[in-house]
């Protein structure tokens, strides 16, 4: 709900990778000074809950192993809770991870993580613009309950060459931008790869990403963009049995998963400049394949989800003081979970199946209008009608969106908004761990679409001459038709998923405060959120309400960036977060076996998520040194220290036997201690 601009300073490097011309077709945005514009819009328009991260600011935020990540940077903003320490899970305003619509150049990404979710699929070298919506959703967005993360990659300059090389501890990436036909066609080509497998031969794992973007300027009124992304996580072991060295005893395990997306957008601007149309067709697919082989035993399990969709969006400024958006979208979802191939003796256990093949069509139309009633009052009203057809039932849902702004002074405003979102597919995670193999399920006649209703209100203040802004927002969100696995559900190899799911409801509410400074030697922000997230399922936890998995009461982030000189700067991040809840065993007792032939120990647990891990506190730092290799080649070197004070960042709790005290104790494990890493970015 915070309209937030994270501070950044345009420098030679970042300006070289930002083509202002590319953005002029975005109505309502004027790219003159992005800091000022975004901050000013926070006062001027009705939009709430929008977070925008300039990529240059991202690069200054200290990161684990020096691998800056856009989603981890977003986790430092109010309202976005992290999941497991170090992971890219986003839990926005009490929502779950599947309630985030993640778009890459208009194509949805179904699994935004690499390396079990510790890195996002976004290669920083390719990013142009990142926007996160947490409330007051524009009507053009739909399909998820809690947030929209809209990521746009760079379009290469039509008349200039650029190259960027980022060398990191875990991965390296490169990006080349070049005009193919001067003033007509340009190409951006980028790649990223980890090299753990090259350094440590016993870790045969790597991930890679390839991004391509072709930009064709047909004429001043028409532009064409083709964006293609492909990413893979690959694990392939081939362990020889050391004892007998026989080929047949080789144990081979494999994992291959990743996303492929492609989107083609035609952008048209009318001669008057009052109408902008975007026509997009896209394809998005996520697949995973896990396999194992030993002697004649072989089994592989595959699942996939694929979207083919099209959008038409029109932005109109034909009526005085009105900014109108209308559009239509249609998408075909294809789900094919649990394809099993096995041979040898494993056939008996796993069998062979092509899995279920499910097709779903989803469509939406919307209209949205923002207009000024007076100088003080600004109104946004819109509605989105969405629907989907399953084999036995058709769902159609109106999704009203309303926003209101009242300008108190030239520098301050209050706003309120209401938005309904509907989600026609669910991803359900296993109860205790989140894996890339978590499956997406479409709605059916029995599994209804998820619905969220969110009201929010806020106060905004902007001191333009100091570039200091402050916002305070409160929200309340109702969630309906949420899905969870029933207790004891079969998580894999199950072709009748409906039986394994239960539906329930939830709510979340909270307060978010944000103070940011966007110019000067010292920039940064202080963010705080007080939040509550609850769930209630009739068949879970005895029907009693319980805390959501990543409910954290307090979240505090302080991010400071200081330019010591033209060459040196330092970034410092401090975060504090209440521990996440978990279900713990508090007692035990014994029960006689039937017939009193013996006794069995039974555990007494707390209610679901009744206990909490300890709070986490972490300080990270990044020291940056900028220098010129040649007149044209510029570089910045980073030394980053993650978790300076080596405090345990809790991610799991285990009950273990304490041999010295001859009793049990709880032990909390942290994933990462202090990690020092260096990276180098070179811009040509």
């Amino acid at each position, binding site marked *: 709900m915070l309209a937030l601009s994270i501070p950044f300073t345009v420098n030679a490097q970042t300006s070289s990778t930002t083509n202002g011309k590319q953005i002029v077709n975005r109505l309502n945005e004027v790219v003159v000074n992005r800091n000022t514009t975004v901050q000013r819009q926070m006062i001027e328009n009705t939009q709430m809950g929008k977070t925008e991260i300039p990529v240059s600011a991202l690069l200054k935020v200290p990161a684990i192993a020096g691998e800056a990540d856009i989603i981890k940077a977003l986790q430092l903003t109010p309202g976005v809770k992290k999941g497991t320490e170090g992971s890219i899970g986003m839990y926005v305003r009490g929502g779950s991870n599947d309630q985030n619509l993640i778009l890459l150049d208009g194509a949805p990404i179904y699994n935004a993580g690499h390396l079990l979710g510790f890195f996002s699929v976004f290669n920083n070298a390719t990013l142009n613009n990142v926007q996160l919506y947490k409330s007051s959703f524009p009507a053009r967005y739909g399909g998820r309950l809690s947030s929209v993360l809209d990521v746009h990659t760079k379009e290469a300059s039509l008349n200039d060459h650029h190259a960027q090389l980022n060398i990191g501890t875990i991965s390296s990436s490169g990006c080349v931008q070049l005009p193919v036909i001067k003033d007509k066609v340009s190409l951006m080509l980028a790649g990223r790869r980890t090299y753990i497998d090259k350094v440590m031969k016993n870790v045969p794992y790597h991930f890679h990403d390839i991004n391509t973007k072709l930009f064709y300027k047909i004429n001043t009124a028409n532009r064409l963009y083709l964006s293609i992304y492909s990413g893979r996580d690959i694990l392939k072991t081939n362990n020889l049995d050391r004892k007998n060295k026989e080929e047949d005893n080789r144990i081979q395990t494999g994992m291959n998963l990743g996303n492929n997306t492609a989107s083609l957008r035609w952008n048209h601007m009318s001669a008057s400049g009052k109408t902008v149309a975007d026509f997009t067709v896209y394809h998005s697919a996520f697949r995973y394949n896990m396999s194992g082989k030993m002697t004649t035993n072989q089994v592989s399990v595959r699942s996939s989800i694929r979207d083919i969709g099209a959008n038409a969006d029109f932005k109109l400024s034909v009526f005085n003081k009105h900014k109108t958006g209308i559009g239509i979208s249609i998408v075909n979802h294809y789900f094919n979970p649990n394809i099993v191939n096995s041979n040898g003796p494993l056939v008996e256990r796993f069998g062979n199946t092509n899995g279920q093949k499910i097709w779903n069509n989803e469509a939406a139309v919307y209209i949205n209008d923002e207009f000024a009633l007076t100088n003080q009052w600004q109104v946004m009203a819109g509605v989105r009608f969405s629907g989907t057809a399953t084999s036995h039932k058709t769902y159609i849902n109106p999704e009203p969106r309303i926003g209101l702004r009242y300008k108190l002074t030239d520098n301050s405003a209050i706003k309120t908004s209401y938005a309904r979102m509907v989600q026609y597919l669910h991803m359900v995670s296993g109860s*205790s761990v989140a894996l890339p193999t978590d499956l997406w399920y479409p709605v059916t006649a029995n599994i209804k679409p998820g619905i969220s209703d969110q009201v929010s209100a806020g106060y905004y203040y902007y001191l333009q001459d100091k570039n200091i802004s402050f916002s305070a927002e409160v929200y309340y969100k109702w969630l309906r038709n949420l899905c969870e696995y*029933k207790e004891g559900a079969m998580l894999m190899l199950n072709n009748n998923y409906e039986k394994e799911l239960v539906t329930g409801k939830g709510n979340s509410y909270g307060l978010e405060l944000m103070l940011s400074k966007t110019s000067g030697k010292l920039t940064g922000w202080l963010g705080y959120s007080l939040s509550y997230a609850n769930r209630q399922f009739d068949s879970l936890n005895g029907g009693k309400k319980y805390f959501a998995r990543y409910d954290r009461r307090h979240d505090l982030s302080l991010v400071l960036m200081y330019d010591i000189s033209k060459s040196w700067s330092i970034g410092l991040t401090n975060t504090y977060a209440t521990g996440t809840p978990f279900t713990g*065993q508090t*007692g035990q007792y014994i029960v*006689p076996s039937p017939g009193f*032939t013996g006794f069995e120990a039974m*555990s007494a647990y707390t209610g679901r998520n009744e206990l909490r891990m*300890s709070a986490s506190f972490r300080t990270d730092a990044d020291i940056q040194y900028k220098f010129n290799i040649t007149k044209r080649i510029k570089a910045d070197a980073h030394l980053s220290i993650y978790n300076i004070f080596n405090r345990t960042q809790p991610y799991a709790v285990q009950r273990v036997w304490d041999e010295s005290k001859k*009793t049990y*104790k709880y032990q909390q494990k942290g994933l990462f201690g202090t990690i020092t890493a260096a990276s180098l970015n070179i811009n040509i």
Partner: protein
Amino acid sequence: MFASCEKDIDVKVPDYKPLLVLNSNTEVDDTIRVTVGKSEGILNYKTGHNLSVNNAIVQLYSGSNLLETMKYDSASGTYNSKTIAVEGEKYTLKVNAPGYAEASAATIAPAFVPIAGIQRIKNARINQDQQQQDELRITFNDPPTKGDYYIISIMVTGIGPDSNSNSYSSCVNTIDASVEGISSDEPDQNTCIDSRWIFTRDDLFNGKTKELRLFMESYFFDNNRAAGSPEIVLQHVTEDYFKFQKTYRFAADNNGNPFAEPTNVYTNIKNGYGVFSVLSYDVAEIK
């Protein structure tokens, strides 16, 4: 580069107050007996702790009338009464022990439901593992009142609810919608249901003659003949015992499973754990 990152947790675990644990599942026409134990906080657990309670005052009521104070038998470790459980009677148990809150529970002894018939059809189908299966058709007459719960066991030896330690069991498949799995309420025709624990209730057949159709691999009936005759036990149980056994089985099946959300075993004991109930059962041999 990577520093150590593990420490003992600082978790605010609420102070654990131990509770009494009562267990009794008497058969109709048998004397009522109860075991009394105690729970303990997991962080106070010590090996070798004796979790039984032998100084409790265990009082048995019929309705609100005190029938007797049950006596502790150190040989069996149970509190025994002279009261014989009679079907349709309501019994209440109140247990007090020094240092514990009073634990209490009530139950109504269910009626005897005889097995009306058993039919075995050999080689009725081939299952997904390409194994021959026989079909068992078990019939019984459900009482007219709603809310009857049954647990059916098919075993070779160790017949009866009082003994299953040396029994042989197998997978049961069914397409009967009234049969409930432990982890899934609607097992399909390929779900392996432990033949010792087939749960069903009369929601779909209240007051009617129920024919339960089950499939088991043929070898189960013939290969185990040396150990004994396969038999069916039809237990008519209380709702409390039904829920207790389902959750107990679920907890046992998922012990150590990191994917399963931990859940408590159902109890009908107020201020305690365990289950107090009475059941009736019938046994029949499968020819």
